[in-house]
């Protein structure tokens, strides 16, 4: 009898909470009336997370908003929080059936689903962020975030007091490995003794797990935390511990006002505008886009005023070098973790080598 | 002793569906008195005390506590009036400490619990009453006797001056019983009143100041202990004025079919429930097992039916040792059983009458065609049982729970008898049945006996034993104290053996 009473109580509580939540949300009025313009174009978006993550999906959503402001005829249809498994294919198919002219998918794991749906709808353009496979109507697009990571590594390397940097990383795939290597090289460029400890979370988006991983690095003695994750939790963890941190995706300064030094950030808006304009103009063609800091698709967020001006100057100088394409991050000599030389003095890794990177540079403490 | 009763119950009646548990009972307790409430199982003792403890409300009657008429509508109210009851099953939180259990739910404690304070308080009370116990230890590390002390302390902590204890000695060792009595005497000296619900005469004689005897919901006698002896009490408990007629029998018992020798059986809690009992059972006879419930009858029957393993001893069926046979093999031999729990063991709740009719024979070839149960055959089998044993029901597809008690029993008995048993074990086959239904069950059993089946019946009502049985084995504390020929014994004799006092010369 006790248990049943308890159940009744829980149900009551649930009922009440439904109403409370219901009432709290009425401010959010989102009446999207598509502007009746001659050049109306439906754009579909499949997000791996929710825009409220202030990370990866947020950055894409900012890009979408920028696009809508720049090209008034754009009508967006968004599917949030679409997992990479069985649900992905249906999501792309539904957007295709809704009449989208172009559909963006923002996660690597959508590859199979996008390829399958692209084959079914040859007149619709598909854009796969971080993807590998292209087709006549399927492009991949990404940015050279490793360049911004190198710059953030310089800041972290200068600010550490014990040469122990921590890195909360999602998956052991080339994209992430490249970022870790770039960060490490950046740190070593100002502080040759800097070491980077890596913890894998095996998830892009899991606030609790990300925070736990950051904490474990802090407990291991790291005094700057960097991340390749979609939420701001690693920043929060560092802030709580009174340590420094480097964000990712967007300027995460507000989430760790004391500790955040800078963040490598995405700036998708201009690229989205160019892409949609190309569709409207009829000049769109399938490509594998990988834009650098010179094209402003990636950038470094403003550097904290805690960082000495001399370092900021150094970072600015490197950024200029990257922009002018006179120099790139993976320029030799590059020594791998196991001591082998991956690039000789003056040699620069090719895009193919970078896109399949499955080794750590010396100074990274972690395993693949 | 004080002149004013601390408790005065007048004209208390309480009905449950089909039963009058208390019929116009008056009951008084004086301060400092140890009052024994005596009676057989089902005599209404627990109901009366549950009313006093606020658990039940009486249909009629008044209760005065310390001279004032009080409505005891909840246990909390009863506690406020200083009345506390300790049940047979303790109500303690196993992984709390003694001190935590004692203060749990009492008014002195609201939110936080200060361990030191409550342990100190516990120590003080326990010292006052000679109930030594370590307040810091967890209840699950205590023996049953120690747990009982915690219960008593709990009541004392809440300021009870009237303590009701339901069969307090059943869980105790003889040593613990002695200690308990010591404590009760101290409490009585300090002015507390104690009501002991019991059916053990020797304990009553040892500890009680005053005795009230209940039988079938009525007070049949009450007096100070000095004016009583065990003989008088036994007669009060079990004797009756009605004249019973022994069932006629056309045949005399045949040879021995079942021979039980030195059988020792474990109970559910790992205790020894049956100690080395020996008896035999003959074809065409009904042997009754008399005894207060919980004296090993259940375990004995289950062991004979193969539902419980015997520790040692032997069960010989037609000269063959069958102790290691499982239930199915014993059914195959012709040993059938009607258990005490009709629904839950004998019948499966929520399954249809049809499904229940094959519970003990579902694996037999006749109900199958190929891999599947043949429900046509099963249905006609069920119909046959329904007709043959006059079971009244609306639809045999309905769950068995819809049947009345009498029809359930007929279904159970019919199902077992239909398998042509050679030994039939039945526990309390007429419990809860009205006169007509009981009559029907007796007819079935007597017919079986006359067919030559050996029947072992566990019964509680002595009237029934004299009505139907040929012999009676009286069980007390796991032993068969005596096996008597029904024609050569008396209710007094059986009654006194049942409650553990053998009267000389009766």
């Amino acid at each position, binding site marked *: 009898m006790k248990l049943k009473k308890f159940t009744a109580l829980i149900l009551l509580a649930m009922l009440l909470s439904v109403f409370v939540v219901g009432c709290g949300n009425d401010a959010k009025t989102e009446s999207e009336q598509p502007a009746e313009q001659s050049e109306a174009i439906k754009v579909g978006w499949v997000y791996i997370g929710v825009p409220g993550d202030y990370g990866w999906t947020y950055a894409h959503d900012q890009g979408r908003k920028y696009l809508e402001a720049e090209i008034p005829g754009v009508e967006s249809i968004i599917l949030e929080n*679409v997992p990479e498994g*069985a649900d992905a294919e249906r999501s792309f198919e539904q957007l295709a059936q809704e009449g989208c002219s172009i559909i963006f998918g923002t996660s690597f794991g959508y590859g199979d689903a996008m390829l399958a749906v692209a084959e079914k709808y040859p007149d619709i353009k598909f854009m796969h962020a971080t993807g590998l496979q292209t087709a006549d109507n399927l492009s991949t697009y990404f940015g050279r975030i490793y360049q911004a990571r190198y710059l953030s590594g310089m800041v972290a390397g200068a600010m550490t007091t014990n040469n122990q940097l921590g890195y909360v990383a999602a998956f052991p795939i080339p994209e992430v490995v490249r970022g870790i290597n770039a960060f490490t090289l950046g740190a070593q460029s100002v502080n040759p003794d800097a070491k980077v400890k890596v913890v894998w979370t095996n998830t892009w988006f899991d606030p609790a797990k990300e925070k736990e991983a950051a904490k474990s690095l802090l407990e291991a003695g790291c005094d700057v935390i960097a991340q390749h994750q979609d939420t701001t939790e690693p920043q929060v963890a560092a802030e709580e511990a009174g340590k420094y941190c480097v964000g990712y995706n967007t300027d995460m300064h507000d989430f760790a006002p004391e500790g955040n030094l800078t963040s490598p950030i995405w700036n998708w808006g201009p690229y989205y505008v160019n892409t949609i304009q190309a569709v409207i103009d009829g000049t769109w063609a399938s490509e594998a886009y990988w834009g650098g800091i010179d094209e402003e698709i990636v950038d470094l967020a403003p550097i904290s005023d805690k960082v000495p001006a001399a370092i900021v100057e150094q970072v600015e100088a490197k950024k200029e070098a990257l922009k002018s394409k006179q120099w790139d991050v993976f320029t030799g000599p590059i020594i791998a973790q196991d001591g082998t030389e991956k690039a000789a003095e003056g040699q620069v890794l090719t895009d193919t080598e970078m896109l399949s990177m499955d080794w750590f540079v010396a100074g990274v403490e972690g395993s693949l | 002793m004080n002149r004013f009763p601390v408790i005065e119950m007048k004209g208390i009646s309480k009905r449950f569906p089909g039963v009058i548990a208390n019929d116009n009972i008056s009951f008084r307790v004086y301060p400092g008195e140890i009052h024994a409430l005596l009676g057989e199982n089902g005599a209404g003792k627990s109901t009366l005390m549950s009313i006093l403890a606020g658990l039940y409300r009486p249909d009629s009657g008044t209760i005065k506590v310390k001279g004032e008429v009080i409505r005891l509508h*909840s246990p909390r109210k009863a506690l406020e009036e200083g009345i506390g009851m300790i049940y047979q099953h303790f109500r303690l939180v196993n992984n709390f400490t003694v001190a935590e259990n004692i203060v749990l739910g009492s008014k002195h404690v609201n939110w936080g619990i200060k361990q030191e304070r409550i342990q100190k308080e516990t120590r003080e009370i326990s010292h006052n009453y000679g109930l030594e116990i370590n307040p810091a230890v967890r209840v699950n590390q205590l023996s049953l006797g120690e747990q009982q002390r915690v219960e008593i302390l709990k009541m004392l902590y809440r300021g009870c001056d009237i303590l009701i204890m339901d069969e307090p000695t059943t869980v105790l060792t003889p040593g613990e019983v002695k200690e308990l009595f010591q404590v009760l005497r101290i409490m009585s000296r300090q002015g507390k009143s104690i009501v002991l619900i019991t059916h053990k005469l020797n304990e009553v004689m040892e500890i009680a100041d005053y005795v009230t005897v209940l039988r079938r919901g009525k007070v049949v006698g009450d007096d100070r202990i000095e004016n009583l002896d065990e003989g008088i009490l036994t007669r009060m408990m079990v004797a009756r004025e009605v004249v019973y007629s022994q069932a006629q029998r056309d045949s005399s018992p045949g040879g021995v079919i079942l021979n039980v020798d030195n059988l020792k059986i474990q109970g559910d809690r790992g205790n020894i429930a049956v100690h080395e009992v020996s008896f035999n059972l003959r074809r065409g006879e009904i042997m009754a097992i008399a005894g207060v419930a919980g004296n090993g009858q259940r375990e004995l029957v289950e062991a004979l039916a193969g539902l419980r393993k015997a520790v040692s001893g032997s069960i010989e069926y037609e000269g063959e040792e069958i102790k290691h046979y499982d239930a199915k093999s014993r059914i195959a031999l012709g040993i059938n059983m009607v258990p005490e729990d009709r629904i839950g063991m004998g019948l499966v709740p929520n399954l249809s009458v049809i499904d229940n009719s094959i519970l003990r024979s579902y694996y037999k070839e006749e109900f199958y065609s190929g891999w599947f149960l043949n429900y046509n055959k099963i249905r006609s089998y069920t119909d046959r049982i329904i007709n043959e044993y006059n079971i009244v029901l609306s639809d045999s597809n309905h769950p068995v729970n819809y049947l009345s008690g009498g029809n359930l029993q007929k279904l159970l008995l019919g199902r077992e008898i239909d398998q042509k048993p050679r030994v039939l074990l039945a526990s309390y086959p007429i419990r809860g049945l009205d006169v007509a239904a009981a009559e029907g069950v007796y007819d079935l059993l007597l017919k079986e006996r006359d067919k030559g089946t050996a029947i072992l019946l566990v019964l509680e009502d002595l009237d029934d034993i004299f009505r139907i049985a040929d012999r009676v084995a009286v069980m007390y504390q796991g032993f068969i104290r005596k096996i008597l020929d029904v024609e050569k014994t008396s209710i007094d004799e059986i009654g006194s053996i049942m409650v553990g006092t053998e009267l000389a010369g009766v």
Partner: protein
Amino acid sequence: MLKLKLIRRENESTMARLIVPVLSIIMAFGCGWIFLALSGYLPAVVFAKMFNGALGSPYAISETIVKAVPLMVAGLAISLAFRMKLWNIGAEGQIYMGAFAASGMALALGNGSPYVIIPIMMIAAFAAGALWGLVPGLLKAYWQVNETIITLMLNYVAIYWVDYLVFGPWKDPNSMGFPLTPIFSPAAQLPTWGDSRVHLGLLLAGIIAIVFYLVVQYTRWGYEVRVMGESSQAAKYAGMNVAKNIMLVMMVSGGIAGIAGMIEVAGITHRLQQGVSPGYGYTAIIVAWLARLNPFAIIIVAFLFGALLVGGFAVQIVGVSFSITQILQGTVLFFLLAGEIFLRYRLVLAREEAV
């Protein structure tokens, strides 16, 4: 003191059993309507999209079926155990083990005849799921260890085991380090219906439901399961081997859940990856309960559940954010479960009598 009490109803009318769920859903939509209106959406548009997205076109229905198939099979698995009052909440882990074993076979056998490879995958998946059910079954049968806890814990073991494989030894060398196994050969993929994603798994679910019904209602073993589910005392009395049946039922239950895992990898993802089951094993518990463990009702309830999930995704198209669709789904579920409780129990205002 006055208290609310829930008291088990002795008998529920058939009418009530049909009307209450319908009323519950109507009330849920009513509640959702108010909520959407307060949030500034047009409820009619949202609900129309929800319906269309789940059931409004052949494609929508096919996708609802795709979503429902694993729920059907896992629901059947769970209800078998629940029939015997064995609280197997480990279907999730059993699904993963089934997916693991089926994938192992698919990867090992490569290409060949689907008539050979698919049955082998099924047998392997059943065996792996059965093993995952047997462990708690064994512990329960011989040492009375609570199966709820063990099955729950084994879920994590299975999920991490699959994680280990896709991150480690089974990782596709061409996946650029991403945790996926290679795509199965076509012979290890379940055939689909036309160009939809509805696959052979639907037929399998139907077959399992029918076999389930026949076995439980009409075989000796099914009879034992029914008796044991109601009363283990009665089962002992009837001479049944309770321990053996606990293990057997847990094995079969786990095995069926394992098949659900095989169906998912062979029918939909065509490879093993993280998150093969996004909680199907847990959702199926609700499905089984709402269907009252009836195998055919499970098929229907799972379909409706699939519709709820797919429809929930679809309403995002009209601009409703993910969190709001989750609230809508939660509301429907809440009213359904509440309706069930009031169907099975009466709410009584009673004076407190017992402590």
